[in-house]
Protein backbone atom coordinates (compact mmCIF):
# COMPACT_ATOMS: atom_id res chain seq x y z
CA UNK A 1 0.00 0.00 0.00
CA UNK A 2 2.71 2.43 1.11
CA UNK A 3 4.83 1.59 -1.92
CA UNK A 4 1.91 2.29 -4.27
CA UNK A 5 1.28 5.65 -2.64
CA UNK A 6 4.89 6.77 -2.81
CA UNK A 7 5.31 5.67 -6.43
CA UNK A 8 1.98 7.26 -7.46
CA UNK A 9 3.00 10.54 -5.82
CA UNK A 10 6.38 10.62 -7.55
CA UNK A 11 4.71 9.69 -10.86
CA UNK A 12 2.16 12.49 -10.52
CA UNK A 13 4.93 14.99 -9.79
CA UNK A 14 6.89 13.76 -12.80
CA UNK A 15 3.79 13.92 -15.02
CA UNK A 16 3.18 17.52 -13.92
CA UNK A 17 6.55 18.52 -15.31
CA UNK A 18 5.51 17.25 -18.76
CA UNK A 19 3.22 20.30 -19.00
CA UNK A 20 6.44 22.24 -19.57
CA UNK A 21 7.95 19.66 -21.89
CA UNK A 22 4.86 19.71 -24.14
CA UNK A 23 5.10 23.45 -24.81
CA UNK A 24 8.27 24.24 -26.79
CA UNK A 25 8.01 27.94 -25.90
CA UNK A 26 8.59 26.97 -22.26
CA UNK A 27 11.73 24.91 -22.93
CA UNK A 28 14.14 27.82 -22.46
CA UNK A 29 12.62 28.32 -19.00
CA UNK A 30 13.25 24.82 -17.66
CA UNK A 31 16.62 25.56 -16.10
CA UNK A 32 15.33 28.75 -14.51
CA UNK A 33 12.33 26.99 -13.00
CA UNK A 34 14.52 24.22 -11.58
CA UNK A 35 16.91 26.77 -10.10
CA UNK A 36 14.07 28.68 -8.47
CA UNK A 37 12.47 25.49 -7.15
CA UNK A 38 15.71 24.23 -5.62
CA UNK A 39 16.67 27.77 -4.65
CA UNK A 40 13.48 28.34 -2.67
CA UNK A 41 14.10 25.12 -0.75
CA UNK A 42 17.79 25.69 -0.11
CA UNK A 43 17.33 29.35 0.73
CA UNK A 44 14.80 28.45 3.41
CA UNK A 45 16.61 25.44 4.85
CA UNK A 46 20.22 26.52 4.61
CA UNK A 47 20.07 30.33 4.76
CA UNK A 48 16.84 31.59 6.28
CA UNK A 49 16.58 28.98 9.04
CA UNK A 50 20.23 29.27 10.23
CA UNK A 51 19.94 33.07 10.10
CA UNK A 52 16.80 33.32 12.19
CA UNK A 53 18.01 30.60 14.56
CA UNK A 54 21.25 32.55 15.08
CA UNK A 55 19.34 35.80 15.56
CA UNK A 56 17.12 34.09 18.12
CA UNK A 57 20.21 32.68 19.83
CA UNK A 58 21.60 36.21 20.09
CA UNK A 59 18.56 37.16 22.19
CA UNK A 60 20.09 35.19 25.09
CA UNK A 61 22.69 37.97 25.30
CA UNK A 62 20.02 40.45 26.39
CA UNK A 63 20.49 41.74 29.94
CA UNK A 64 18.50 39.90 32.60
CA UNK A 65 15.55 41.97 33.74
CA UNK A 66 12.72 41.30 36.19
CA UNK A 67 10.29 41.21 33.29
CA UNK A 68 12.27 39.27 30.62
CA UNK A 69 13.06 41.35 27.53
CA UNK A 70 13.38 38.40 25.18
CA UNK A 71 9.85 38.29 23.70
CA UNK A 72 9.58 42.07 23.65
CA UNK A 73 12.54 42.09 21.27
CA UNK A 74 11.69 38.85 19.49
CA UNK A 75 8.14 39.74 18.43
CA UNK A 76 8.79 43.06 16.67
CA UNK A 77 11.79 41.45 14.98
CA UNK A 78 9.61 38.61 13.74
CA UNK A 79 6.98 41.06 12.52
CA UNK A 80 9.60 43.11 10.71
CA UNK A 81 11.19 40.03 9.13
CA UNK A 82 7.84 38.56 8.04
CA UNK A 83 6.58 41.75 6.41
CA UNK A 84 9.99 42.35 4.82
CA UNK A 85 9.98 38.90 3.21
CA UNK A 86 6.36 38.99 2.04
CA UNK A 87 6.39 42.54 0.70
CA UNK A 88 10.03 42.59 -0.45
CA UNK A 89 9.50 43.77 -4.07
CA UNK A 90 7.79 47.00 -3.03
CA UNK A 91 10.17 47.71 -0.17
CA UNK A 92 13.33 47.32 -2.28
CA UNK A 93 11.57 48.78 -5.37
CA UNK A 94 12.17 45.80 -7.61
CA UNK A 95 10.14 45.55 -10.82
CA UNK A 96 9.05 49.19 -10.79
CA UNK A 97 8.56 49.55 -14.59
CA UNK A 98 6.03 46.69 -14.59
CA UNK A 99 4.28 48.07 -11.50
CA UNK A 100 4.00 51.43 -13.24
CA UNK A 101 2.61 49.83 -16.41
CA UNK A 102 0.06 47.80 -14.47
CA UNK A 103 -1.09 50.34 -11.89
CA UNK A 104 0.07 53.75 -13.13
CA UNK A 105 1.81 54.23 -9.76
CA UNK A 106 5.36 53.87 -8.44
CA UNK A 107 6.78 52.01 -5.43
CA UNK A 108 8.07 55.12 -3.71
CA UNK A 109 6.09 54.96 -0.42
CA UNK A 110 6.64 51.32 0.52
CA UNK A 111 10.06 51.50 2.22
CA UNK A 112 9.00 54.38 4.47
CA UNK A 113 5.69 52.68 5.26
CA UNK A 114 7.47 49.47 6.19
CA UNK A 115 9.90 51.36 8.44
CA UNK A 116 6.97 53.10 10.15
CA UNK A 117 5.24 49.75 10.61
CA UNK A 118 8.42 48.33 12.20
CA UNK A 119 8.75 51.39 14.41
CA UNK A 120 5.13 50.96 15.51
CA UNK A 121 5.70 47.30 16.38
CA UNK A 122 8.84 48.16 18.35
CA UNK A 123 7.02 51.01 20.10
CA UNK A 124 4.02 48.92 21.11
CA UNK A 125 6.24 46.11 22.32
CA UNK A 126 8.38 48.52 24.39
CA UNK A 127 5.29 50.18 25.82
CA UNK A 128 3.85 46.82 26.90
CA UNK A 129 7.16 45.98 28.55
CA UNK A 130 7.18 49.25 30.50
CA UNK A 131 3.58 48.64 31.61
CA UNK A 132 4.47 45.12 32.77
CA UNK A 133 7.51 46.41 34.69
CA UNK A 134 5.44 49.14 36.32
CA UNK A 135 2.66 46.75 37.32
CA UNK A 136 5.12 44.28 38.75
CA UNK A 137 6.84 47.02 40.80
CA UNK A 138 3.47 48.26 42.04
CA UNK A 139 2.40 44.74 42.96
CA UNK A 140 5.63 43.41 44.43
CA UNK A 141 7.60 46.52 45.38
Amino acid at each position, binding site marked *: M*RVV*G*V*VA*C*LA*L*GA*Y*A*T*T*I*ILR*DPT*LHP*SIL*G*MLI*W*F*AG*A*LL*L*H*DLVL*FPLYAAAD*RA*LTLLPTTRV*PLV*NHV*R*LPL*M*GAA*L*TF*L*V*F*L*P*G*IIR*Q*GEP*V*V*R*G*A*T*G*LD*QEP*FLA*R*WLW*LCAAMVGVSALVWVVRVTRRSAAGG
Partner: protein
Amino acid sequence: MTIRWRSPIRGPWLTSVFGLVLLCALPVVIVTGLLDWVAYGSQPIPADVGFLHLPAFDWPTRPAWLFRLTQGLHVGLGIVLVPVVLAKLWSVIPKLFTALPRNPLKALERLSLIMLVGGILFEIVTGLLNIQYDYVFGFSFYAAHYVGAWVFIAGFVLHVALKLPTMMRSLRSRSFREELRTPLAETRSEPPDELVAPDPDPPTMSRRGALAVVGGGVVLLAGLTLGQTVDALRPTALLLPRGRTAPGDFPVNRTFAASGVSEQAIGAEWRLDLGGVRLTRAELAALPQHTADLPISCVEGWSTQQTWTGVRLRDLAAVAGVDGPSGADVSSVEEGPFARASLTSDQVLHPDSLLALQVNGADLSRDHGFPARIIVPALPGVHCTKWVAAIGFRA
Protein backbone atom coordinates in the same frame (compact mmCIF):
# COMPACT_ATOMS: atom_id res chain seq x y z
CA MET B 1 28.43 17.10 13.70
CA THR B 2 25.41 16.97 15.95
CA ILE B 3 23.13 19.94 16.53
CA ARG B 4 21.73 20.58 19.97
CA TRP B 5 18.11 21.53 19.43
CA ARG B 6 17.21 24.03 22.09
CA SER B 7 13.50 24.70 21.92
CA PRO B 8 11.53 22.86 24.64
CA ILE B 9 8.20 23.39 22.87
CA ARG B 10 9.09 21.69 19.60
CA GLY B 11 7.23 18.39 19.45
CA PRO B 12 4.60 16.34 17.63
CA TRP B 13 1.62 18.08 19.29
CA LEU B 14 2.70 21.57 18.24
CA THR B 15 3.62 20.34 14.75
CA SER B 16 0.21 18.70 14.47
CA VAL B 17 -1.65 21.89 15.38
CA PHE B 18 0.13 23.74 12.55
CA GLY B 19 -0.44 20.69 10.35
CA LEU B 20 -4.17 20.68 11.06
CA VAL B 21 -4.49 24.38 10.14
CA LEU B 22 -2.69 23.75 6.85
CA LEU B 23 -4.70 20.59 6.18
CA CYS B 24 -7.91 22.63 6.46
CA ALA B 25 -6.75 25.74 4.60
CA LEU B 26 -4.43 24.53 1.82
CA PRO B 27 -7.13 22.56 -0.04
CA VAL B 28 -9.05 25.85 -0.33
CA VAL B 29 -5.99 27.54 -1.81
CA ILE B 30 -5.45 24.60 -4.18
CA VAL B 31 -9.05 24.38 -5.39
CA THR B 32 -9.48 28.14 -5.86
CA GLY B 33 -6.21 28.19 -7.79
CA LEU B 34 -7.37 25.38 -10.08
CA LEU B 35 -10.73 27.15 -10.49
CA ASP B 36 -8.85 30.16 -11.79
CA TRP B 37 -7.58 27.99 -14.64
CA VAL B 38 -11.21 27.05 -15.43
CA ALA B 39 -12.33 30.70 -15.21
CA TYR B 40 -10.00 31.53 -18.12
CA GLY B 41 -12.46 29.55 -20.24
CA SER B 42 -11.30 28.61 -23.72
CA GLN B 43 -8.03 30.52 -23.22
CA PRO B 44 -6.44 28.87 -20.16
CA ILE B 45 -2.74 29.32 -19.41
CA PRO B 46 -0.91 26.96 -19.61
CA ALA B 47 -3.06 25.64 -22.46
CA ASP B 48 -2.08 21.96 -22.55
CA VAL B 49 -2.08 20.43 -19.06
CA GLY B 50 -3.02 16.85 -19.93
CA PHE B 51 -5.46 15.55 -17.32
CA LEU B 52 -4.14 17.84 -14.59
CA HIS B 53 -7.12 20.15 -14.25
CA LEU B 54 -10.55 20.28 -12.64
CA PRO B 55 -13.44 18.84 -14.69
CA ALA B 56 -14.16 21.37 -17.44
CA PHE B 57 -17.32 23.48 -17.16
CA ASP B 58 -18.49 26.83 -18.49
CA TRP B 59 -17.46 29.48 -15.95
CA PRO B 60 -20.73 30.87 -14.56
CA THR B 61 -21.83 34.52 -14.62
CA ARG B 62 -23.77 34.23 -11.35
CA PRO B 63 -23.02 35.27 -8.70
CA ALA B 64 -21.23 38.28 -10.18
CA TRP B 65 -18.70 38.19 -7.32
CA LEU B 66 -17.71 34.57 -7.96
CA PHE B 67 -14.25 35.26 -9.39
CA ARG B 68 -13.74 38.02 -6.84
CA LEU B 69 -14.33 35.41 -4.14
CA THR B 70 -12.33 32.52 -5.58
CA GLN B 71 -9.30 34.54 -6.59
CA GLY B 72 -9.44 36.74 -3.48
CA LEU B 73 -9.42 33.56 -1.37
CA HIS B 74 -6.60 32.02 -3.38
CA VAL B 75 -4.28 35.00 -3.03
CA GLY B 76 -5.48 36.17 0.39
CA LEU B 77 -5.28 32.76 2.06
CA GLY B 78 -2.01 32.10 0.28
CA ILE B 79 -0.54 35.21 1.89
CA VAL B 80 -1.90 34.78 5.41
CA LEU B 81 -0.77 31.14 5.57
CA VAL B 82 2.89 32.14 5.13
CA PRO B 83 3.52 32.34 8.92
CA VAL B 84 1.82 28.97 9.46
CA VAL B 85 3.96 27.34 6.76
CA LEU B 86 7.13 28.86 8.23
CA ALA B 87 6.13 27.72 11.74
CA LYS B 88 5.37 24.21 10.49
CA LEU B 89 8.76 24.03 8.79
CA TRP B 90 10.48 25.34 11.95
CA SER B 91 8.72 22.69 14.01
CA VAL B 92 9.99 19.78 11.90
CA ILE B 93 13.38 21.11 10.86
CA PRO B 94 15.41 18.73 13.09
CA LYS B 95 14.38 15.98 10.65
CA LEU B 96 16.21 17.76 7.84
CA PHE B 97 19.48 17.17 9.66
CA THR B 98 19.02 13.43 10.16
CA ALA B 99 20.75 10.92 7.88
CA LEU B 100 18.94 9.65 4.78
CA PRO B 101 17.23 6.34 5.68
CA ARG B 102 18.77 3.11 4.31
CA ASN B 103 15.38 1.59 3.54
CA PRO B 104 14.75 2.55 -0.13
CA LEU B 105 11.02 3.13 0.48
CA LYS B 106 11.81 5.53 3.33
CA ALA B 107 14.39 7.22 1.14
CA LEU B 108 11.75 7.73 -1.57
CA GLU B 109 9.39 9.14 1.05
CA ARG B 110 12.11 11.60 1.94
CA LEU B 111 12.37 12.51 -1.75
CA SER B 112 8.65 13.25 -1.80
CA LEU B 113 9.27 15.82 0.94
CA ILE B 114 11.30 17.80 -1.60
CA MET B 115 8.12 18.00 -3.69
CA LEU B 116 6.10 18.97 -0.62
CA VAL B 117 8.39 21.60 0.89
CA GLY B 118 10.05 22.77 -2.32
CA GLY B 119 6.61 22.89 -3.93
CA ILE B 120 4.99 25.10 -1.32
CA LEU B 121 7.99 27.44 -1.06
CA PHE B 122 8.11 27.74 -4.87
CA GLU B 123 4.38 28.53 -4.98
CA ILE B 124 4.69 31.12 -2.20
CA VAL B 125 7.70 32.81 -3.78
CA THR B 126 6.35 32.92 -7.35
CA GLY B 127 2.88 33.92 -6.13
CA LEU B 128 4.15 36.76 -3.93
CA LEU B 129 6.39 38.07 -6.71
CA ASN B 130 3.58 37.92 -9.26
CA ILE B 131 1.05 39.90 -7.22
CA GLN B 132 3.73 42.57 -6.76
CA TYR B 133 4.59 42.58 -10.50
CA ASP B 134 8.18 41.54 -9.81
CA TYR B 135 9.14 39.21 -12.67
CA VAL B 136 12.75 38.79 -11.57
CA PHE B 137 12.47 35.01 -12.17
CA GLY B 138 12.23 35.56 -15.92
CA PHE B 139 9.95 32.64 -16.82
CA SER B 140 6.21 32.32 -17.43
CA PHE B 141 4.51 32.80 -14.07
CA TYR B 142 1.37 30.97 -15.15
CA ALA B 143 3.15 27.83 -16.33
CA ALA B 144 5.57 27.72 -13.40
CA HIS B 145 2.91 28.33 -10.75
CA TYR B 146 0.60 25.73 -12.32
CA VAL B 147 3.25 23.02 -12.62
CA GLY B 148 4.63 23.86 -9.17
CA ALA B 149 1.10 23.49 -7.80
CA TRP B 150 0.77 19.94 -9.11
CA VAL B 151 4.21 18.96 -7.85
CA PHE B 152 3.14 20.29 -4.46
CA ILE B 153 -0.28 18.59 -4.63
CA ALA B 154 1.40 15.23 -5.27
CA GLY B 155 3.68 15.69 -2.27
CA PHE B 156 0.84 17.04 -0.12
CA VAL B 157 -1.57 14.17 -0.80
CA LEU B 158 1.09 11.59 0.01
CA HIS B 159 2.20 13.47 3.12
CA VAL B 160 -1.38 13.66 4.42
CA ALA B 161 -1.97 9.97 3.67
CA LEU B 162 1.21 8.95 5.50
CA LYS B 163 0.99 11.36 8.43
CA LEU B 164 -2.73 11.71 9.16
CA PRO B 165 -2.71 8.93 11.82
CA THR B 166 0.35 10.50 13.48
CA MET B 167 -1.33 13.90 13.45
CA MET B 168 -4.53 12.58 15.01
CA ARG B 169 -2.60 10.64 17.67
CA SER B 170 -0.44 13.66 18.50
CA LEU B 171 -3.42 16.03 18.71
CA ARG B 172 -5.07 13.65 21.19
CA SER B 173 -1.87 13.40 23.25
CA ARG B 174 -2.52 16.78 24.91
CA SER B 175 -5.65 18.76 25.63
CA PHE B 176 -5.83 21.92 23.52
CA ARG B 177 -7.78 23.73 26.27
CA GLU B 178 -5.28 22.64 28.88
CA GLU B 179 -2.48 23.96 26.67
CA LEU B 180 -4.23 27.35 26.41
CA ARG B 181 -4.25 27.50 30.23
CA THR B 182 -0.58 26.57 30.63
CA PRO B 183 1.67 29.59 31.32
CA LEU B 184 5.38 29.82 30.62
CA ALA B 185 6.36 28.73 34.12
CA GLU B 186 4.60 25.39 33.69
CA THR B 187 5.66 24.72 30.10
CA ARG B 188 7.45 21.35 29.84
CA SER B 189 8.72 19.33 26.89
CA GLU B 190 6.50 16.77 25.19
CA PRO B 191 7.38 13.10 25.88
CA PRO B 192 10.49 11.84 24.01
CA ASP B 193 10.03 11.74 20.23
CA GLU B 194 12.24 12.39 17.22
CA LEU B 195 11.02 16.03 17.15
CA VAL B 196 11.46 16.65 20.89
CA ALA B 197 14.84 18.04 21.97
CA PRO B 198 16.46 15.65 24.46
CA ASP B 199 18.42 18.43 26.17
CA PRO B 200 16.51 21.69 25.67
CA ASP B 201 17.08 25.17 27.06
CA PRO B 202 14.58 26.51 29.60
CA PRO B 203 11.47 27.79 27.81
CA THR B 204 11.22 31.47 26.85
CA MET B 205 7.75 31.06 25.35
CA SER B 206 4.81 28.82 26.21
CA ARG B 207 3.05 26.71 23.60
CA ARG B 208 0.04 28.99 23.75
CA GLY B 209 2.46 31.90 23.29
CA ALA B 210 3.89 30.26 20.17
CA LEU B 211 0.39 29.69 18.78
CA ALA B 212 -0.47 33.31 19.54
CA VAL B 213 2.67 34.53 17.75
CA VAL B 214 1.84 32.54 14.61
CA GLY B 215 -1.80 33.61 14.84
CA GLY B 216 -0.62 37.20 15.26
CA GLY B 217 1.45 36.87 12.08
CA VAL B 218 -1.65 35.64 10.25
CA VAL B 219 -3.71 38.57 11.56
CA LEU B 220 -0.96 41.06 10.66
CA LEU B 221 -0.77 39.80 7.07
CA ALA B 222 -4.57 39.63 6.79
CA GLY B 223 -4.76 43.25 7.91
CA LEU B 224 -2.22 44.24 5.27
CA THR B 225 -3.96 42.24 2.50
CA LEU B 226 -7.71 42.70 2.93
CA GLY B 227 -7.59 46.21 1.42
CA GLN B 228 -6.71 44.63 -1.95
CA THR B 229 -10.26 43.32 -2.15
CA VAL B 230 -12.43 45.55 0.04
CA ASP B 231 -12.80 49.02 -1.49
CA ALA B 232 -13.54 50.70 1.85
CA LEU B 233 -10.30 49.31 3.34
CA ARG B 234 -8.13 50.00 0.28
CA PRO B 235 -5.45 52.16 2.01
CA THR B 236 -4.89 49.53 4.72
CA ALA B 237 -3.09 47.32 2.19
CA LEU B 238 -0.11 49.50 3.10
CA LEU B 239 2.62 47.51 1.40
CA LEU B 240 0.85 46.11 -1.68
CA PRO B 241 0.62 47.79 -5.09
CA ARG B 242 -3.17 47.39 -4.99
CA GLY B 243 -3.48 49.34 -1.75
CA ARG B 244 -2.86 52.49 -3.74
CA THR B 245 -4.92 54.29 -6.35
CA ALA B 246 -4.51 57.60 -8.09
CA PRO B 247 -6.59 60.26 -6.24
CA GLY B 248 -10.28 59.88 -7.01
CA ASP B 249 -9.71 56.80 -9.15
CA PHE B 250 -10.07 53.05 -8.69
CA PRO B 251 -7.34 50.51 -9.53
CA VAL B 252 -6.30 50.16 -13.20
CA ASN B 253 -5.29 46.73 -14.49
CA ARG B 254 -3.07 48.08 -17.27
CA THR B 255 -2.45 51.71 -18.05
CA PHE B 256 -3.09 53.32 -21.41
CA ALA B 257 0.57 54.28 -21.52
CA ALA B 258 1.66 50.64 -21.09
CA SER B 259 -0.84 49.33 -23.65
CA GLY B 260 0.96 50.76 -26.66
CA VAL B 261 -2.37 52.00 -28.03
CA SER B 262 -2.01 55.22 -30.02
CA GLU B 263 -4.09 58.35 -29.42
CA GLN B 264 -5.30 58.18 -33.03
CA ALA B 265 -6.57 54.61 -32.70
CA ILE B 266 -9.05 55.69 -30.04
CA GLY B 267 -9.73 59.14 -31.47
CA ALA B 268 -12.46 60.44 -33.77
CA GLU B 269 -11.65 57.72 -36.34
CA TRP B 270 -12.44 54.93 -33.87
CA ARG B 271 -15.26 52.59 -34.86
CA LEU B 272 -16.62 49.46 -33.19
CA ASP B 273 -16.53 46.69 -35.77
CA LEU B 274 -19.39 44.21 -35.35
CA GLY B 275 -18.62 42.40 -38.60
CA GLY B 276 -20.50 44.19 -41.34
CA VAL B 277 -21.75 46.92 -39.00
CA ARG B 278 -19.42 49.69 -37.84
CA LEU B 279 -20.54 52.06 -35.09
CA THR B 280 -19.13 55.37 -33.86
CA ARG B 281 -19.03 56.08 -30.14
CA ALA B 282 -21.93 58.53 -30.56
CA GLU B 283 -23.99 55.83 -32.25
CA LEU B 284 -23.22 53.44 -29.38
CA ALA B 285 -24.22 56.11 -26.85
CA ALA B 286 -27.52 56.54 -28.72
CA LEU B 287 -28.42 52.86 -28.19
CA PRO B 288 -30.35 51.88 -25.01
CA GLN B 289 -28.00 52.17 -22.03
CA HIS B 290 -27.93 49.87 -19.02
CA THR B 291 -26.21 50.42 -15.65
CA ALA B 292 -24.83 47.66 -13.42
CA ASP B 293 -22.66 47.42 -10.28
CA LEU B 294 -19.99 44.90 -11.17
CA PRO B 295 -16.57 43.97 -9.84
CA ILE B 296 -13.31 44.00 -11.73
CA SER B 297 -11.43 41.07 -10.22
CA CYS B 298 -7.89 40.28 -11.15
CA VAL B 299 -5.88 37.09 -11.10
CA GLU B 300 -3.50 38.88 -8.71
CA GLY B 301 -6.22 38.72 -6.09
CA TRP B 302 -7.29 42.36 -6.00
CA SER B 303 -10.76 43.50 -6.93
CA THR B 304 -12.95 46.58 -6.93
CA GLN B 305 -16.68 47.12 -7.41
CA GLN B 306 -17.79 50.00 -9.65
CA THR B 307 -20.92 51.23 -11.42
CA TRP B 308 -20.73 50.68 -15.17
CA THR B 309 -22.99 52.06 -17.89
CA GLY B 310 -23.11 50.97 -21.50
CA VAL B 311 -24.80 48.87 -24.14
CA ARG B 312 -25.87 45.32 -23.31
CA LEU B 313 -23.84 42.79 -25.28
CA ARG B 314 -27.03 40.96 -26.26
CA ASP B 315 -28.41 44.22 -27.73
CA LEU B 316 -25.19 44.60 -29.73
CA ALA B 317 -25.62 41.05 -31.00
CA ALA B 318 -29.06 42.05 -32.27
CA VAL B 319 -27.54 45.11 -33.97
CA ALA B 320 -25.01 42.79 -35.60
CA GLY B 321 -27.91 40.61 -36.77
CA VAL B 322 -26.96 37.56 -34.68
CA ASP B 323 -29.93 36.08 -32.84
CA GLY B 324 -29.14 34.07 -29.69
CA PRO B 325 -25.37 34.13 -30.10
CA SER B 326 -23.42 31.06 -29.00
CA GLY B 327 -20.54 33.28 -27.92
CA ALA B 328 -18.39 36.19 -28.97
CA ASP B 329 -14.79 36.99 -29.83
CA VAL B 330 -13.67 40.36 -28.57
CA SER B 331 -10.52 42.05 -29.77
CA SER B 332 -8.80 45.19 -28.61
CA VAL B 333 -7.07 48.02 -30.38
CA GLU B 334 -4.16 46.87 -28.23
CA GLU B 335 -1.87 44.09 -29.41
CA GLY B 336 -0.47 41.44 -27.11
CA PRO B 337 -1.31 38.28 -25.19
CA PHE B 338 -4.51 39.62 -23.58
CA ALA B 339 -5.80 41.64 -26.53
CA ARG B 340 -8.38 38.99 -27.41
CA ALA B 341 -11.05 37.37 -25.28
CA SER B 342 -13.56 34.68 -26.07
CA LEU B 343 -16.94 34.88 -24.31
CA THR B 344 -19.43 32.06 -23.82
CA SER B 345 -23.10 32.31 -24.67
CA ASP B 346 -23.98 32.92 -20.97
CA GLN B 347 -21.41 35.66 -20.75
CA VAL B 348 -22.87 37.43 -23.79
CA LEU B 349 -26.54 36.99 -22.82
CA HIS B 350 -26.35 37.97 -19.13
CA PRO B 351 -28.44 41.17 -18.72
CA ASP B 352 -25.54 42.91 -16.93
CA SER B 353 -22.93 42.02 -19.56
CA LEU B 354 -21.96 45.34 -21.11
CA LEU B 355 -19.86 47.13 -23.58
CA ALA B 356 -19.31 49.92 -21.06
CA LEU B 357 -18.93 53.53 -22.19
CA GLN B 358 -19.04 55.07 -18.73
CA VAL B 359 -18.05 54.24 -15.18
CA ASN B 360 -19.52 55.94 -12.10
CA GLY B 361 -21.48 58.34 -14.29
CA ALA B 362 -18.54 59.69 -16.32
CA ASP B 363 -17.00 58.64 -19.62
CA LEU B 364 -14.32 55.97 -19.24
CA SER B 365 -10.83 57.37 -18.83
CA ARG B 366 -8.20 56.17 -21.27
CA ASP B 367 -6.68 54.03 -18.49
CA HIS B 368 -10.04 52.30 -17.98
CA GLY B 369 -10.48 51.53 -21.68
CA PHE B 370 -11.94 54.57 -23.50
CA PRO B 371 -13.78 54.55 -25.93
CA ALA B 372 -15.39 51.28 -24.74
CA ARG B 373 -14.59 48.22 -22.67
CA ILE B 374 -16.15 44.87 -21.88
CA ILE B 375 -17.51 44.22 -18.39
CA VAL B 376 -19.09 40.83 -17.68
CA PRO B 377 -20.21 39.37 -14.33
CA ALA B 378 -17.64 37.00 -12.73
CA LEU B 379 -15.32 37.20 -15.73
CA PRO B 380 -11.59 37.48 -14.84
CA GLY B 381 -10.55 41.12 -15.23
CA VAL B 382 -7.97 40.30 -17.87
CA HIS B 383 -10.77 39.15 -20.20
CA CYS B 384 -12.80 42.33 -19.65
CA THR B 385 -11.11 43.74 -22.74
CA LYS B 386 -10.30 47.45 -22.82
CA TRP B 387 -10.05 49.72 -25.89
CA VAL B 388 -12.38 47.33 -27.73
CA ALA B 389 -11.95 47.35 -31.53
CA ALA B 390 -14.25 44.55 -32.63
CA ILE B 391 -16.79 42.06 -31.35
CA GLY B 392 -17.57 39.03 -33.48
CA PHE B 393 -20.77 37.36 -32.30
CA ARG B 394 -20.91 33.65 -33.14
CA ALA B 395 -24.23 32.44 -34.51
